[in-house]
């Protein structure tokens, strides 16, 4: 017994000393809770870690339960902020107890990957060809709609095996949003969503599931997050954007798309970046958002949240690229800074 007492007392002493000397801890650390999207989770967890290190006294607890869960929890008010890969619909926003702000934090791109022996990366696909492949109308790799743009590639008459995400995901939302934008037939037959009724193809669970099936199946084509495709060195297709140039997915071409959309960015940031203008912009990308109420219920938490968001838009953005998320372009950051000023507690701005 005596032996165990020593370290315990020492720890207690350290704790007393810590709490006593650090005024922010005197009232116990402040924990801000959040829930939502899984796609930006690696980035957010890095942010929370770095922010808590440089701002002692504020802790974050984030559950990456999916965008749908994030929206449900923020609607119910069980978390301080939500996170989503697809903007909330009008119908969803109507259920909220108060006005909500969408704060864009990063841009994700969706890469079209394929498995064609003898054909390297950079296969060129037009929006038409891509939509018809996913509608099941183009079924062979040597179809003139593909071959005519790839004169050098040895495309055999093999079957196209289509692979899509089987789990509901923001990636699917961005991808189907793109197809619905470029193809009227896709829009009327399938539509856009985190899960849709695919006309053809196999479903793989998660990025790893789609990547696994594409890798194992000759003649397969699928779509996955750019970060995952880059890390796993998969062959990615160059897609033709609205300016007519074929662009490979990359952080640069993704940021380019956001810059192209910046001029027309609406005040609430609920915007789709697919098929964005700009000569070098990659057409299949989308924003991911944090969701916060404009009227905060707790002054201390609201203050912490606002200062964290301001930090995330500036210092935090520098951590995006190393983790393969495209940063929010400068002009948009300025707009977000203004939006953050709206966050208030009982009518008083918190920033």
């Amino acid at each position, binding site marked *: 017994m005596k032996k165990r007492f020593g370290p315990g007392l020492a720890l207690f002493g350290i704790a007393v000393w810590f709490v006593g000397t650090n005024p922010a801890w005197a009232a116990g650390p402040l924990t801000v809770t959040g829930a939502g999207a899984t796609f930006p989770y690696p980035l957010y967890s890095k942010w929370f870690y770095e922010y808590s290190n440089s701002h002692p006294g504020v802790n974050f607890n984030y559950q990456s*339960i*999916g965008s749908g869960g994030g929206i449900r929890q923020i609607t119910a008010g069980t978390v301080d902020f939500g996170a989503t890969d697809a903007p909330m619909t009008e119908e969803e926003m109507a259920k909220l107890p108060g006005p909500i702000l969408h704060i864009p934090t990063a841009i994700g791109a969706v890469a079209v990957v394929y498995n064609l022996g003898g054909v390297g990366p950079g296969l060129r696909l037009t929006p038409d060809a891509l939509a018809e492949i996913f509608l099941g109308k183009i079924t062979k790799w040597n179809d003139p709609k593909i071959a005519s743009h790839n004169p050098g590639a040895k495309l055999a008459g093999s079957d196209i095996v289509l692979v899509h995400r089987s789990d*509901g995901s923001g990636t699917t939302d961005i991808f189907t949003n793109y197809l619905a934008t470029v193809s009227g037939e896709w829009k009327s037959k399938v539509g*856009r969503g985190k899960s849709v009724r695919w006309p053809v193809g*196999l479903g793989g*669970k998660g990025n790893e599931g789609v990547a696994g*099936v594409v890798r*194992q199946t000759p003649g397969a084509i699928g779509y996955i997050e750019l970060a995952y495709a880059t890390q796993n060195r998969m062959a990615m297709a160059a897609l033709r954007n609205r300016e007519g140039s074929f662009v490979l997915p990359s952080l640069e071409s993704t940021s380019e798309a956001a810059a192209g959309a910046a001029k027309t960015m609406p005040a609430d940031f609920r915007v789709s970046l697919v098929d964005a203008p700009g000569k070098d912009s990659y057409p299949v990308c989308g924003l991911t958002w944090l969701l916060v109420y404009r009227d905060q219920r707790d002054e201390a938490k609201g203050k912490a949240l606002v200062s964290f968001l301001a930090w995330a838009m500036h210092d935090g953005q520098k951590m995006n690229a190393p983790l393969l998320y495209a940063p929010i372009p400068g002009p948009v950051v300025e707009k977000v800074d203004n939006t953050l000023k709206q966050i208030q507690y009982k009518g008083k701005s918190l920033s």
Partner: protein
Amino acid sequence: MMSRTGENRKDLLFEKTTAFFALCVLGLTLLLFALLIRESLPAIRKFGVSFVTNSTWDPVLEEFGALPFLYGTLVSSFLAILIAVPLGVGSAIFINEFAPGWLKTPISFLAELLAAIPSVIYGLWGIFVLVPILRDYFMKPVSRALGWIPLFQGPVYGPSMLAAGVLLAIMIVPFILSVSREVLATVPQVQKEAVLSLGGTRWEMIRIVIGQHCIPGIFGATILGLGRALGETMAVTMVIGNRPDVLLSLFQPGYSMAAVIANEFTEATGDLYLSALVEIGLVLFLLTIVVNFAAKRILKRMVPGSSKRAAR
């Protein structure tokens, strides 16, 4: 059973405590059932019976029919049983009756090891090893030779109902194997020797002994395996192809109830969508109950009074 003469307060307390725990289990089950019904009410009201007869699953238009998932769960599970029962019972007979001593331990140890592997590992192994092997060395040749039979029709992708059935079979073999071994071990040595002493061959001995003694137990083992197969989620979703269509061909992709819940629940935003997913859970729950009840009835009819042993 228990003698009541020496009963004292401690005994009574013990009895009440255990009764409380038993009621907790019952209560939890009822609560689960009630919750499933409550949460699926919107979908039940909207779709009624058509929920299990409609084969369209369209989250965008909010039209939900669960038939493809029901079909996929049943077909993949029965396929698994079809493969796993001969494999499991056969190897149990071999281990117990024929195998030399030095082989018994390693085989049964390895089989039990199979049961301890997490299902996501089975799924990954399925994607990277089993599916390519099945596709290149079984499905392609069979499709070329027997492609005119509806069961083997259509293009060969790899991920398919067949792949799910085979993977599930591998996952449930250890259960069937170990329960079958225990059942076989309950046969009195005297009976076996009696058959042999009457001039019976080993095959006759096994046939008679199994026919007399072990069928209910083996049936119970099968139901245990079926229960696992019906609810298996991760491994199935990784190899079944996740296509919500009712397709007769085993080479075509399918979908299962557990898989669609796991896949779509986290990102389901609409109330009706969520409710439809919960209703699939309810259907799965009812299906498991029906299968278990049916099994008990069949068992009772086969050997009166033996259901207890088999259910063990």
